[in-house]
């Protein structure tokens, strides 16, 4: 619980903030360029310490964030103090601290009970004034947070309407904040989701050291252990306790302390069921919720069944970033290098989206495999940062290329390309008459005359308005 100074029973809407964000995203296949400035609206609320809590997606890629108080026409400029793209939360500060005069910070409550009533406050689309909706807590479980796209956390589902613009607004119960409204489910009616207090508290605690590090991950793939034969094989009693570790992510501490076929009996204070769930404040949810109680750099006590015996392990919990390129990325501009009109950039989900809706189609199967499957199947051949030739700025020096885009770079001048710096080094340290760029997987290659490439570099950058040849 985060204590704050407001008095339950006061008008909470006075502390609910309207947020307008003017944002600009990069063009992922022309990474020196930007998309047009976009205006979007969201909500937030005042918490203690003269800060505004909102969703990360409300202020991501923000060039300017404008906040307004309840029934006050004056705009104030805010800036992002902390942003958590994994759990879709952010804290804002306002340059003019008088903004907070007369505003009581809202106080956080506990995880609401299923079937209890909640009220959302916010500034959704469809009007200018604050809007309230009422609903019941429908269920509580882990859901994917669509802002990152590849992280799941505890989520509360409600039938209170949550619409675009509600994002970042508080969900209240008895005047205590029991959640931050953040997403809906396309195709489902009367279904909105909000981020509950355990996730919010984790975020706030993480920021206490002055930076946000993120939720740590154990890197354990847990599967149900319900077949009596498998339980017998592991010499485990045939009851409803214990889920099996099927495989591990390449996290050193995890690989050192945990093994496939370990059976997790307890994570922290939570007993693990044979279906891989725990009972979390009365709700049966994925055991991930128990792992997510730990902060980064903390040790999480685990009770494990291994080779017929119970053992206790203290697992160091660290943030895992190995899968960042398969999630949505924000606020960090994409890396690139332009050489002789050839544009190289890291392979990522954001880049793949530039290929259009059917980007998973056969034509891009190599890129899809590299992005999603190689890491799990063949860690020894996985590149830390796969690089693609994403486009070619046409010029006589490269005009005869047949391979001009969407191609995974294997080698340049014989050097295996594991990251963007390798591309730069391979071109800049070459001494042969020709540059040879090889593509995966079939050894297709293209050839550049090195002298021409060097001579034309500045001209090509100028012609296409590329301000710098690289962002590393």
């Amino acid at each position, binding site marked *: 619980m985060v204590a704050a100074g407001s008095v339950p029973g006061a008008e909470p809407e006075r502390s609910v903030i309207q947020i307008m964000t003017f944002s600009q995203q990069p063009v992922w296949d022309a990474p020196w360029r930007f998309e047009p400035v976009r205006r979007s609206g969201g909500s937030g609320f005042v918490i203690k310490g003269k800060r505004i809590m909102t969703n990360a997606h409300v202020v991501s890629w923000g060039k300017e964030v404008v906040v307004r108080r309840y029934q006050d026409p004056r705009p104030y400029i805010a800036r992002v103090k902390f942003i958590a793209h994994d759990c879709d939360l952010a804290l804002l500060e306002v340059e003019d601290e008088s903004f907070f005069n007369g505003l009581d910070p809202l106080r956080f409550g506990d995880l609401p009970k299923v079937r209890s009533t909640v009220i959302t406050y916010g500034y959704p689309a469809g009007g200018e004034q604050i809007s309230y909706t009422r609903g019941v807590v429908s269920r509580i479980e882990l859901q994917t947070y669509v802002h990152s796209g590849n992280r799941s956390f505890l989520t509360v589902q409600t039938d209170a309407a949550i619409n675009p613009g509600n994002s970042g607004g508080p969900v209240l119960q008895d005047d205590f904040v029991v959640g931050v409204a953040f997403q809906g489910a396309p195709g489902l009616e009367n279904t909105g989701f909000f981020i509950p207090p355990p996730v919010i508290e984790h975020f706030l605690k993480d920021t206490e050291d002055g930076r946000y590090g993120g939720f740590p991950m154990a890197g354990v793939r847990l599967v149900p252990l319900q*077949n009596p034969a498998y339980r017998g094989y592991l010499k485990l009693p045939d009851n409803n306790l214990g889920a099996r570790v099927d495989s591990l992510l390449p996290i050193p501490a995890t690989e050192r302390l945990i093994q496939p076929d370990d059976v997790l009996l307890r994570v922290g204070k939570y007993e693990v069921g044979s279906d891989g769930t725990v009972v979390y404040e009365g709700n049966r949810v994925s055991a991930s919720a128990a792992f997510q109680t730990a902060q980064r750099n903390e040790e999480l006590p685990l009770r494990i069944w291994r080779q017929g015996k119970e053992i206790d392990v203290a697992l160091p919990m660290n943030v895992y970033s190995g899968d960042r390129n398969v999630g949505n990325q924000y606020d960090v501009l994409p890396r690139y290098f332009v050489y002789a009109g050839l544009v190289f950039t890291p392979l990522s989900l954001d880049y793949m989206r530039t290929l259009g809706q059917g980007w998973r189609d056969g034509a891009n199967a190599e890129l899809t495999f590299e992005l999603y499957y190689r890491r799990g199947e*063949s860690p020894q051949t996985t590149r830390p940062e796969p690089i693609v030739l994403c486009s070619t700025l046409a010029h006589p020096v490269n005009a005869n290329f047949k391979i001009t885009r969407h191609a995974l770079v294997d080698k340049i001048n014989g050097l295996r390309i594991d990251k963007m710096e390798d591309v730069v080094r391979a071109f800049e340290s070459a001494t042969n008459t020709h540059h040879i760029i090889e593509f995966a997987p079939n050894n297709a290659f293209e050839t550049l005359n090195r002298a021409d490439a060097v001579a034309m570099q500045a001209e090509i950058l100028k012609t296409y308005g590329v301000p710098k040849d690289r962002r590393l």
Partner: protein
Amino acid sequence: MRIRLFYWLAACLALAPASGLAREMTKKAGFDWERTIVSVEINRKQYDYFQPWSKRVQTVVKTGIVIGPREILTTADSMDDRTLVRVQRGGRGKWSNADVKWIDFPANLAVVTSAEEQFWSGLKPVPLAEPVKKGQDIQVLRWRAGNLEVRKAEFNRFAVTHPNMSDAVHVQLELNSEINGVGWAEPAIAGNKVIGLVFAQSGNLLQVLPSPFIRSILDAQKKGHYKGLGYFDFTWQPAENPETLDYLKLTGEKRGAVVIDVPQKPGFESVVKPLDILLQVDGFDIDTQGDYVDPDYGHLLLENLSTRNKWAGDPVRLKIWRDGRAQDVVYRLPKAEDAARLVPEAPFDQEPEYLIAGGLVFQPLTKDFLRSWGQDWERRAPFRLAYFRNQDPKPERPAIVILSQVMPDLYNIGYQDSRQLVIEKVNGQKINYLADVQQALKKPVSGFQIFEFMKGDTLQRIVLDAATLDAATKRVLEHYGIDKDHFFAATGKSATAGRAGGLN
């Protein structure tokens, strides 16, 4: 390809064309086509690869043309797993029993005959034409509701493409026509000759096996020279980038295509190597796009020289540029049917293989299995399984067996949702073929059957009880009405082993 049946049936329901007009048009062409075009009905077993033990009956009606005494030419498409073939003359009336005299699936050609004497009375063979010339009037003919339908078609181009029945690549004629629902061996004619058989349709585009290609195979087959279609097993890229040819130190005019990949075959060294420039193939100059000038068809992809009057095992003379000089080498065409593929076509005329153990269903991964996701299978099939088609077989993985599904039973509880997983080992033994699974199950480990799947983001391991496996399998078969717990090819090993295991 089989989806075309729907179109054909739909076409049957439509109104018949004006028969008088058709007769007039065909007579004008100077040939009585009604006496040479016949219908060929194929009744066949069709398999559901999601339930490989289940057979459906399919009836396909195609077109055939009389090409000689007691010989009807048609395509091989949908003639596998046939149970009864019949022929009909004049588009109506009695059907006569028929036999397949000769068939070659990679070439997509079949010759059908009938022992019924009266069927042949009055039928007249038609000659297969020389290559069609631009500007010729082209029509596509077929029997439709008892009348001969004649539809105009226009020459589009000759193209060298992969015809989808094997790794063989050959020239195809592309026509444009308003006709619907063709692709079942309807003859395309010009004057009084057949210029090809339509074997596929996509919108208004008809794909046609050109007569010279057909005739070369039929002639070779009659002379006993035909050994099946061959193919080039190496990969090349165009050399339109002159810097590439400079880098490879080619002197003189810019020409040729660059070899980029040659399959590794144990105990066999290819005469072609990566970075060779193909200057000539079979005496034809290769340009920087990888084309040669064909005397019959004009500019064609060099790939066509693997099937232009050459058959599997035949030598093809190559002039290559290597180490700064031109060299002559002789390349022997591998057989297309033996192409090493990690995901092979399922063998023709063979039931799908499967093995059920305790409700776990194992199947070899074949293209036919993937086609179970429909015409758009390359997009709709699970990505990881479909992606295997892009990968080459290797000694450590010459073929793939998958756990395709689990038939739920108390024995396998907890695994009911497991599906489409690549099986790596059973009881510690490596699995490449279905028969490997059967053998490995005979050697349980300490009373357990241990299944290990391919490393990745999906389930890695299943353990089941060994002592009760057979009883569980029996119970599953009874419960789900399945006759047999397995079907293996007659070779004793997985039939796909013969195709994919050789690494030729």
